[in-house]
């Protein structure tokens, strides 16, 4: 059902899709989340269906560019919530929150998970 040449589920560089940017303040998160980050990357490896290695992906690399589909995003959400025993509020159920390892790490921190 796509127009020829148009990807089915691909991001556009200019699109965010979020009326407001709900991403937590990155500066408050800090960079010392080694264990959390490892677990996030493990979840991405197992559930995001990325084309590359989740453990060598740049922190701010776009996960959708790397192959994560809309349905895989839901699998990642489920795995994150089970692993960290948190619940993402509706305001965080957006594309931008799931766009990169950095954003996911920030979101997990904002939900009260300590490094």
């Amino acid at each position: 059902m796509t127009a020829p040449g148009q990807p089915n589920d691909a991001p556009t560089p200019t699109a965010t899709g979020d009326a407001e940017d709900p991403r937590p303040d990155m500066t408050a998160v800090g960079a010392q989340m080694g264990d959390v980050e490892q677990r996030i990357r493990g979840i991405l490896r197992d559930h995001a269906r990325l084309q590359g290695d989740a453990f060598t992906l740049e922190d701010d690399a776009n996960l959708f560019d790397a192959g994560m589909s809309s349905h895989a995003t839901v699998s990642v959400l489920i795995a994150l919530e089970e692993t960290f025993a948190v619940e993402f509020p509706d305001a965080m159920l957006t594309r931008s929150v799931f766009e990169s390892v950095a954003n996911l790490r920030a979101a997990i921190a904002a939900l009260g998970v300590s490094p």
Partner: protein
Amino acid sequence: VTAVGARRLPERESAPAEALWLGTGARAAFAILHRTASVPEHAALICPPFGWGEACAYRDLRRWAQALARAGVACARLWPPGVGDAGGVPDGDQLGQWTAAIADAAEWLRGATGAERIVAVGVGLGGMLACQAAQDGAAIDDFILWGVPSRGRTLLRYERLHAGVVTAVSAEPIAVDLDEGGLQLAGYHLRPEAASTLRRLELHPDAMPARPGRRVLLLGRDGLDPDAYLHERFLSTEAEVTVVEGEDWSDLIGPPQQSVAPAGTIARTIEWIQAGERSSSTPRPVARTAAPRRLHAGPSTLVDAAGTVRERVLRFSGELADCFAIMSEPASRPAHPLTAVWLSPHHVGPSRMWVELTRRWAARGVRTVRLDLTGQGESGGASPRPLPDRFLYAAQRSEYLPHVLDQLAEQGCGPRFIVGGYCAGAYWALRAAIEDPRVCAAMLLNLYVFSYTDELLDERLSAAALEDLGARGWQRLRARRLSPAQVRRGLRTLRVAHRAVGRPQERQLKRESARILDLLGERGVQTLLVLCQGESLLAQLDAQGPLDRWPHLTVDRLPTYDHYMFQVKVQALVHASVDRALERALETN
């Protein structure tokens, strides 16, 4: 044949499927029944997921049903009221209606097939409602549940995230929340009452009335375990519970052109059902049992509360025998001599736009047919996965719609026709308008091009890839974020792009487009183009110069870049645009 890993699923059907409505009027559900050669021990009732997920999984749930029937398990796919081709509109207590429809369908399926046991195959919301129906007393013996949470609130959160990700590819943000508590989920409108009921829905399998020998198969999704509460509560009953991984969830639920039949899970479900059969005794002869008296089941019915529109499943012959189409026609007034035909990759459309369109036009007095392209939706024919664009525009499709018009004329429709469609359907509607003198109006939504060639597609893909490479590629290369394979692909693109310098196909297309518009004008074909921003044809039209030299042409531009028309407000604009075009066609014919 579609290959998925080591497994293969044949395209062919064991027996023709029967499409029919269960009940009549606004409460009529719609079902497609796949019978078996002999009376089955089990019959499966497939309850699909909601909204975009259902559209994505449509073709592959069909394959699942075919595979079950070939394996001796009769199968029906169900669309409850207000969904798909079912009667009614989505309003009021949608969830209550859907749950009741599942209960009725389970009873009907047992009677129609003679099966001893009914197994509900529920995906997402469909699985939740099948469980709820059983809790309310529906005669469902066994369950296969895939991607089914125990709480409606959880499902809504998943749908919200999914919709947010899918619709974010639109250049315009699409709010998930609608006024008064309703939700628009990737183009599908969940009315406030339904959203509220779903938010409160909680399943308690241990509260289901017991059925002897109940078996339950819980499927995880892509490495994630099934819902823990459902698992635990089913275990607390006397049911035999089996849990398997369901590693091909993404195959089923991917975008329509990318989704593939989840062959591993299909095979596993067949094995699981067969393992529950009493014995592999000699098949019994077919003895069709009458459906329960209170539920009318047939290939024709009224589909609205007022009784103004009747629908029937059309039968075609010859090379169109596999073609799936539904006719909406006025039930309480004479039909207009114009007949409309709407062609799309899937005859239902997002938020069942094409169902609403055909019924609205039928209420206006115009018999209107909605049909699927060959190999798409419910139509037979090969359907490779992933589905290449070239397949949708293959030249052998050019005779498809004219043949449909021939057979409709033989059935007393016409003599003049309006043709319309979306995306590839719009293209074949245009070709019919060009070549068939019976066509007096064409309505074309997100038409890709006036004249398709593979060379043009290559040229456009190369240009787009080059542009993308220019925008992002060098940055990624410098940051070492490109893999060797990506670099190789980039170089290959550059070579093709080099050959396409000067865009010779586009230049030729400009002349051909003008010729086609001249021809349609000479023939008096009222032509409507409805185009989203960013569609290739918009740029091409801008390059054609002033369009007023074609007074028969109307161009409506939609305020969105979203090809799928996911926004409810955009869908309303489309409905208004095609309705105006219908009035113009009726005035001049």
